[in-house]
């Protein structure tokens, strides 16, 4: 298979994903493709099934129906449910990143910032302390954390720093796909702005593919190429971000867009 043909294949394919919790619908019949270097935002209000979708995509939760395909580094597109647990976990700590809204979930709070960044490297077999430390230092400066804080625990970091540390920890193995669950939630506006700026840069430089779950339409507009609007577990509208946000078709999307505060 020639390279061009491989590159034109989507990186991630979701095929009619459904999940319900008893009578409660988590998400229903969600399908989409994500290509390399593409950023997709999933927006909707609380309880619309955004986080459930993310957990289904990252195989943290088993779907009732539907499948997820992912193109591995060797070019083969595989149904993720056919991968073994060891393969999935390896994928999750090398080729994927997962950024939680609450950084304490994604970080090891009891070890230093440097060790948090270095963990994935050690997990894939790095055994040279000097090199691990160098990589950690590089990544801390890339996410604008003072490298003098490398040996401090994340418990001593501010909320914004913790979130940036979590991003560094995920990107250190140069993943191709990053999933983010409300990455800017709980941060104040100026810190959000810096984080968004940083993310936008990293995504562009590293040519990352990303699925970003957010309820903040401004985040979606700044970071994403495409957008999916969810309501009650279903995708009600999707398309290019500018197009959907500037000219929303569905009444619910119109409501979402019009409820942004204008200063």
């Amino acid at each position, binding site marked *: 298979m020639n390279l061009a043909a491989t590159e034109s294949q989507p990186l991630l394919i979701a095929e009619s994903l459904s999940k319900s919790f008893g009578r409660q619908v988590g998400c229903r019949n969600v399908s989409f493709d994500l290509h390399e270097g593409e950023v997709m935002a999933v927006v909707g209000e609380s309880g619309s099934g955004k986080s459930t979708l993310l957990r289904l995509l990252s195989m943290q939760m088993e779907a009732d129906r539907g499948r997820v395909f992912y193109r591995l580094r060797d070019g083969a597109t595989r149904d993720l449910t056919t991968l073994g*647990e*060891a393969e999935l*976990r390896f994928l999750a700590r090398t080729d994927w990143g997962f950024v939680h809204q609450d950084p304490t979930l994604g970080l*090891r709070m009891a*070890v*230093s910032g*440097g*060790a948090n960044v*270095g*963990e*994935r490297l*050690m*997990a*894939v077999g790095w*055994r*040279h*302390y*000097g090199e*691990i*430390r160098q990589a950690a230092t590089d990544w801390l400066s890339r996410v604008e954390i003072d490298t003098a804080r*490398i*040996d401090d625990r994340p418990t001593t970091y501010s909320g914004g720093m913790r979130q940036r540390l979590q991003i560094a920890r995920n990107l250190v193995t140069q993943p191709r796909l990053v999933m983010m669950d409300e990455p800017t939630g709980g941060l104040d506006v100026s810190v959000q702005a810096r984080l968004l700026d940083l993310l936008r840069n990293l995504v562009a430089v590293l040519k990352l593919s990303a699925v970003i779950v957010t309820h903040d339409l401004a985040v979606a507009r700044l970071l994403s190429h495409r957008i999916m609007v969810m309501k009650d577990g279903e995708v009600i509208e999707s398309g290019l971000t500018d197009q959907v946000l500037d000219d929303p078709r569905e009444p619910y999307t119109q409501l979402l867009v019009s409820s942004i505060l204008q200063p």
Partner: protein
Amino acid sequence: MNTPQHAPAYNFAYLDEQTKRMIRRAILKAVAIPGYQVPFASREMPMPYGWGTGGVQVTAAILGADDVLKVIDQGADDTTNAVSIRKFFQKTAGVKTTTETAEATIIQTRHRIPETPLTARQILVFQVPIPDPLRYLEPRETETRRMHALAEYGLMHVKLYEDIARHGHIATTYAYPVKVDGRYVMDPSPTPKFDNPKMHDCAALQLFGAGREKRIYAIPPHTRVVSLDFDDHPFERYRHDDTCALCGAKDSYLDEIVTDDRGSRMFVCSDTDYCEGRRGDAGRTGTPHAEAQTP
């Protein structure tokens, strides 16, 4: 049982035969999968947790009437823990006990491996407080089991990384993690890292019993045991840079003993039998072989 020398109220070696069989099955499994923690139905023993309930159960399960038992606590034969466990088996099994490493067939130990090299006819039984090396790194037991199953041991190096970041060198001095037979990462119980190299390619069978945590694991004879480290911070043995004040040994693991309240101190061998042996027969009388050989 051909030598019913033990106190009549007890079954041989305290535990009932079914229990001993259950423990032997766990031991066999542990030997078959070096370094893997095998769960077992640990019993209440007539001593508190932390005093060697795991080691005692393993010893009870493998003890035969003609075995010669040695028990050490931090290298010494004459400390409380060692004396009481020796007495326990004298009373309940009527076996011969010794303080001489070379004479013993089973050596139960708390945190040291004797200086005298072990032989193929000996078994070393460790008392283990915390069997899982991942315990303080990952709080979920379900997760640590999965990590062992998938050989995901990156986290172990995170601990060593933290040591170097904070102290400039690997400051873990005891319970230093090892990889057994290229597969399972194992906690060698709180033995000083000085003893780690002795585990590698050891002629004797090494058994580990954790009573409170209900786990048994093992290193079969002549198994590869490698201490984890970094390429640029290799594993190093540690001993006080001194000689034993009693026997002059330069190669043994030393205890520091404070001799007055003005800061005077001396270093002596932690392995009392090794020290006495080097001082000759005159030295041997130094340690009270307190208990009589019969109950």
